[in-house]
């Protein structure tokens, strides 16, 4: 029997630590293991016994790239448990803050981590030597996102201004004016980015994903909506755990998630930009829809390598959305609505840059957390990532070891995995004779 192994002992340009091991026997893929060895972090246990008001700041610490997502999912879940509704300008400010995180996170991944793959560079440093203007553009776009998060969140990393019921402090309308000017520049820069990434060479590959994302009656999903899938799932977020299940696998510190679908039993699914785009193309701003079409992308896209284009489209959408929110903003009378402790259970899903982020909390009468459950996007995508790798490798066995290994790493970066979030990550090995 001939055996071939593809291994990457340390995956570069992903957030966190992990490895990949692929075994090929007699020209067939015998096994794919995405190994995540970022240590478990036990956040769900830290939360037990803490007051409900502490959850946004504690969970923001799970990730330096998407702290806003953790804050948003936690406050929405708490507000459901405590029977509080946050509407009007406070809701708009939360959406604006989330737009900042999307811009920042997508710009970082697209320009600094993902684009070098398509242009044949080891890293963004090499890319910066040959494409300094695009790298500068990317860093400036990221900066606009950072500025939005810093203004509304109090600081860029691990923002501190979000609370259950609203914010600690809200900006006056005129404080947002300078940002609107920066965002107008970002709108042109993001349009230019969509056109640029649309012209990159993409490996040929498509998969029959079960896309899962939020869907809102009017908006491209950020903070709320029903959970929908490509194969007909349409449920309120409170039913999440009836359909989605987490399980331990021996080779990973991150839990694997599966979805129970009506016809095909329990299987992998995909969350994130590609899922949101396919399920919500009609909710994108007209500007983002037009840019996508110009870049050669229809309302449906099943090539994960083109997720770089989808991220650019989403970045443009987030900029346009932010401009709209700022134009319509009127400073609210109070920075938050009153919240009183009570016993209850609340859950919420919001769309983190990498996909749906689920939180559930159970509180006692004093508002102390009795139980917490957090399901980050990267752990939900792990099974799809392994499936994609198996299918991709099976179709590209004629590639040299170096090229195949390179494209497997590229495949993983399509997901923009955040390994730090998923552990509770990467080295790559493809084994063949």
């Amino acid at each position, binding site marked *: 029997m001939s055996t071939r192994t593809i291994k990457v002992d340390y995956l570069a340009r992903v957030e966190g630590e992990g490895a990949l091991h692929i075994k090929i026997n007699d020209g067939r893929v015998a096994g794919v293991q995405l190994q995540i060895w*970022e240590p478990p*972090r036990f956040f769900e246990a830290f939360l037990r016994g803490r007051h409900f008001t502490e959850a946004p700041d504690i969970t923001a610490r799970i990730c330096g790239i998407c702290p806003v997502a953790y804050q948003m999912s936690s406050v929405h879940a708490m507000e459901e448990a405590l029977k509080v509704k946050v509407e009007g300008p406070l809701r708009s400010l939360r959406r604006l803050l989330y737009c900042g995180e999307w811009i920042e996170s997508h710009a970082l991944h697209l320009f600094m981590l993902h684009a070098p793959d398509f242009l044949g560079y080891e890293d963004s440093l090499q890319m910066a030597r040959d494409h*300094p203007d695009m790298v500068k553009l990317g860093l400036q776009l*990221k900066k606009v996102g950072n500025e939005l998060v810093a203004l509304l969140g109090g600081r860029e990393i691990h923002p501190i201004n979000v609370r259950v019921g609203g914010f600690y402090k809200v900006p006056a309308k005129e404080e947002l004016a300078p940002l609107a000017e920066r965002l107008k520049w970002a709108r042109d820069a993001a349009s230019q980015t969509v056109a640029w990434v649309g012209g990159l060479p993409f490996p040929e590959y498509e998969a029959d994903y079960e896309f899962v994302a939020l869907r809102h009656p009017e908006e491209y999903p950020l903070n709320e909506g029903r959970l929908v899938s490509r194969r007909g799932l349409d449920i309120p977020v409170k039913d999440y755990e009836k359909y989605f299940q987490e399980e331990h696998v021996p080779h990973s510190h991150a839990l694997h998630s599966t979805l129970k679908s009506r016809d095909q039993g329990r299987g992998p699914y995909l969350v994130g930009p590609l899922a949101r785009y396919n399920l919500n193309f009609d909710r994108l701003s007209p500007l983002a829809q037009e840019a996508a079409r110009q870049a050669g992308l229809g309302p449906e896209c099943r090539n994960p390598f083109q997720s770089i284009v989808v991220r650019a489209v989403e970045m443009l959408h987030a900029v346009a959305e932010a401009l709209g929110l700022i134009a319509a903003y009127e400073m609210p009378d109070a920075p938050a609505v009153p919240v009183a402790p009570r016993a209850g259970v609340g859950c919420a899903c919001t769309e983190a840059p990498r996909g749906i982020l689920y939180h559930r909390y159970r509180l006692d009468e004093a508002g102390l957390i009795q139980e917490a459950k957090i399901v980050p996007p990267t752990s939900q995508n792990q099974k799809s990532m392994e499936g994609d790798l198996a299918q991709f490798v099976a179709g590209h066995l004629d590639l040299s070891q170096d090229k195949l290994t390179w494209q497997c790493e590229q495949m993983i970066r399509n997901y923009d995995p955040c390994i*730090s979030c998923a552990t509770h990550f990467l080295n790559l090995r493809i084994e063949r004779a």
Partner: protein
Amino acid sequence: MNAHNLQLHQETILIIGIGNIFRGDDGAGLAAARLIRELQLPGVAVLELDGDPSTLLDRWQGAQRVVVIDAVASQSSPGRIFRFAAQAAPLPRRLFACCSCHSFGLAEQIEIARSLQQLPPSLTVYGIEGKDFRLGSGLSPEVQQALPRLVEQIREDLGIC
């Protein structure tokens, strides 16, 4: 302090501490920066960067003299101090790219800035060897003891004794 609030004058010396206070000795750069801030030296601005250093290029825009302090893990003795004139040559990546899950190590950030011609005219990087980078707060005694010496060396270097 947020850099956006910093008014950098041509004469200002900018000290940037980098690290994560929740990863043991990874917080050494931040601890050194705090000691310098406490001295309230005229013409010196101090910044602390937590986690992702990818905003470094923005932070030093307009500054003529920049000092960056970060923890290193080179298998040498804990508390050992390294000094690099980074405007002249790349940092050894072995020392500055290893001990965290930051998207970019300090060495890469400086090289990207060099490619984009956004390095300050004077950029000195101090590294301090750490002993323990596991989860948890607090510095190991060897690193703690080395901090005053590091601060003294930076002051001598900058002529701000």
